[in-house]
């Protein structure tokens, strides 16, 4: 095996992280948050940059390596004069990325799926039109863009490490919000990883793991904003939201959760400022770019509808106390009714095929062989524990997340419009063709994505304000 291409990999790391470092040093006041936000800002910056430029492959910039290293050093010196801890943290991140990449190079830690390889080939040959036909989310494209075509060097851990950063920051915020014992927070974030299906998806280039981390980061940063209305929390909210919108094309359906959070936490003013309108416009156009030429649930009209609906609900709720109260009190009930309506529409449109899709999805999600089965049982048990507990705004959010899972499950038949039932079925030739079902394609992965979000949130909620002493007491009530 060839030696690990240390120089070119570090040049790619510099491309990825330096914009993140500059943004973080400029905007974030607290250094510990700033350091962890570097990969998130880096990925966000390139996601935005790729949306509005033709740059989607760093090979063209390889000749400027000396300039990049010089600018990198200059940036570090300037930031070092103001924020020494952040520079130290940045160097730590570079060391970590190098370790992951070396390990990956020699042992294959991160497994790119076939679609990842296809996107990589597309990026390599500058055939961007194929990406649009794929409907590949912007962040997925960014995660595969860090390579030089002349040499065999590629950075595959972008998506994974950005996801890890999102989970760590979410953990720090939840720890501050819920005042949970540190060991419980650690257990809350580690236990979902002890599952094959989850681990296998974490270690792929696809953005599911990242999207779940970002969803949790968004929720935790909203709670954090409620108790600490500083600029850092605002930036974290909007960064996570921007990345969510660009991470998974189906993420736009999360808008109902956003609406619920914004109203129940009474942070709607933040979302109605000019600042956020500009933010949403940028997010919308960059997201739209990723969806271009694509029909169905992932299509541009759907995204536009979601954005318009989002602002309509915010504006209407802000003007009327009745709507405001309705959202705070009865949001999950209304959402349940709408989900029921979607179910009826699916049955009406697809009949037996819809039922088939539900049966296939149910077996996939409850199958012990794929490790989904253990998650299925565990999370329903956790839901039960929540249902028996008293009322709380956190509980509403968690129930809403479960409703999202149900929504994704019930929208399975709508994948018809995305992939095309007949053609996709016959075109797919492979070892798994017998079990393959297009209904199952995105839905089961999206549901797994929510598992990762729900787990830590529920644990922190159950053990809120719990210290080591409380845990050792006998007969502690929930």
């Amino acid at each position, binding site marked *: 095996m060839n030696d690990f291409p240390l120089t070119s990999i570090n040049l790619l790391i510099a491309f990825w992280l330096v914009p993140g470092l500059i943004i973080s040093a400029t905007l974030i006041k607290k250094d510990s948050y700033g350091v962890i936000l570097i990969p998130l800002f880096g990925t966000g910056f390139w996601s935005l940059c790729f949306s509005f430029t033709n740059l989607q492959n760093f090979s063209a910039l390889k000749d400027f390596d000396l300039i990049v290293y010089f600018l990198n050093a200059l940036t570090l010196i300037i930031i070092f004069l103001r924020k020494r801890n952040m520079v130290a943290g940045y160097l730590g991140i570079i060391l970590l990325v190098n370790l992951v990449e070396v390990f990956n190079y020699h042992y294959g830690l991160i497994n790119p799926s076939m679609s990842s390889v296809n996107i990589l080939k597309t990026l390599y040959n500058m055939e961007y039109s194929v990406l649009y036909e794929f409907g590949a989310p912007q962040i997925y494209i960014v995660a595969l863009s860090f390579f030089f075509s002349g040499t065999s060097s590629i950075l595959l851990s972008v998506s994974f490490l950005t996801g890890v950063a999102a989970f760590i920051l979410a953990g720090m915020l939840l720890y501050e919000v819920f005042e949970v014992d540190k060991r419980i927070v650690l257990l809350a974030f580690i236990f979902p990883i*002890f599952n094959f299906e989850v681990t296998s998806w974490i270690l792929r280039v696809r953005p599911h793991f990242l999207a779940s981390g970002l969803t949790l980061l968004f929720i935790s940063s909203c709670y954090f904003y409620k108790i600490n209305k500083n600029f850092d929390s605002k930036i974290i909210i909007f960064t996570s939201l921007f990345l969510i919108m660009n991470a998974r094309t189906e993420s736009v359906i999360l808008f109902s959760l956003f609406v619920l959070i914004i109203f129940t936490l009474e942070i709607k003013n933040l979302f109605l400022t000019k600042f956020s309108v500009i933010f949403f416009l940028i997010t919308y156009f960059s997201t739209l770019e990723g969806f271009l030429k694509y029909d169905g649930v992932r299509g541009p009209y759907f995204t536009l509808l979601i954005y318009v609906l989002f602002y309509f609900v915010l504006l209407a709720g802000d003007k009327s106390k009745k709507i405001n109260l309705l959202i705070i009190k009865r949001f999950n009930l209304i959402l349940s009714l709408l989900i029921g309506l979607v179910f009826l529409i699916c049955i009406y449109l697809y009949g037996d095929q819809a039922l088939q899709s539900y049966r296939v999805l149910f077996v996939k999600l409850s199958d012990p062989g794929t490790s989904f089965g253990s998650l299925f049982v565990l999370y329903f048990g956790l839901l*039960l*524990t929540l249902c028996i507990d008293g009322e709380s705004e956190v509980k509403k959010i968690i129930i809403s997340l479960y409703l999202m899972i149900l929504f994704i499950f019930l929208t399975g038949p709508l994948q018809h419009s995305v992939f095309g039932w007949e053609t996709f079925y016959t075109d797919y030739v492979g070892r798994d063709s017998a079990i393959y079902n297009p209904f199952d394609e995105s839905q089961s992965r999206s549901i797994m994505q929510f598992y990762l979000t729900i787990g830590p949130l529920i644990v922190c909620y159950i053990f809120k304000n719990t210290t080591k002493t409380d*845990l050792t007491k006998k007969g502690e009530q*929930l």
Partner: protein
Amino acid sequence: MIRNNSKLLPLFIYTLIIAGIVLLSISTYGIPSSFVKGLDSVQVEDIDYGLNIPSFNNVCLYSYHDGERLLNEFAKENNYKITLRKSYTDNPKCFGKIIGSNLPQLALRSGLENNEWIDLQVTIRQGVPTWSQEPIFILFIFMINASFLLALKSKKFILLCFIIFIAYSMATFDEYNRYLNGIDQVIPNHKYIQNIITQLNNP
């Protein structure tokens, strides 16, 4: 924690759902053959299992784990790995049975290669998970739900749920069922990508 009887309703519904799925699974796939049958009754063909691989292709003769049991018994000296792949069928006679493999019908056992992967394709019924064929999974369900019940008394038992979950995941970990029923083909490591780039560089 339980403040009134109405709080027991979710618990009742939950128990009913779990028990319902287990019973449905038992009625469709039965219970594992190792629980009720000896190896003799599993040998349904009139062949020398020491010489030939059983007829796995297109006949639905062997149930879920029987193929694995027979291979483990009669081809134990061969260094092979088995994957169970699932597919759907509408034929009630084939629910939970082996319908195919990557081996020729009645192939000679001596023809098995070293480190060979044997794919056994099991057919299942749409909508019915194979819980009844996985005794460890049933044990996991029992233990984790017992912990949830105890958690109604004290929330500390939630932590026990996580420990059971981690223990179950560790106990069932094995490298070859990692991507079982996976949609994407998995590329082993980074070197593969390097090769692709090298090929692209040198058409």
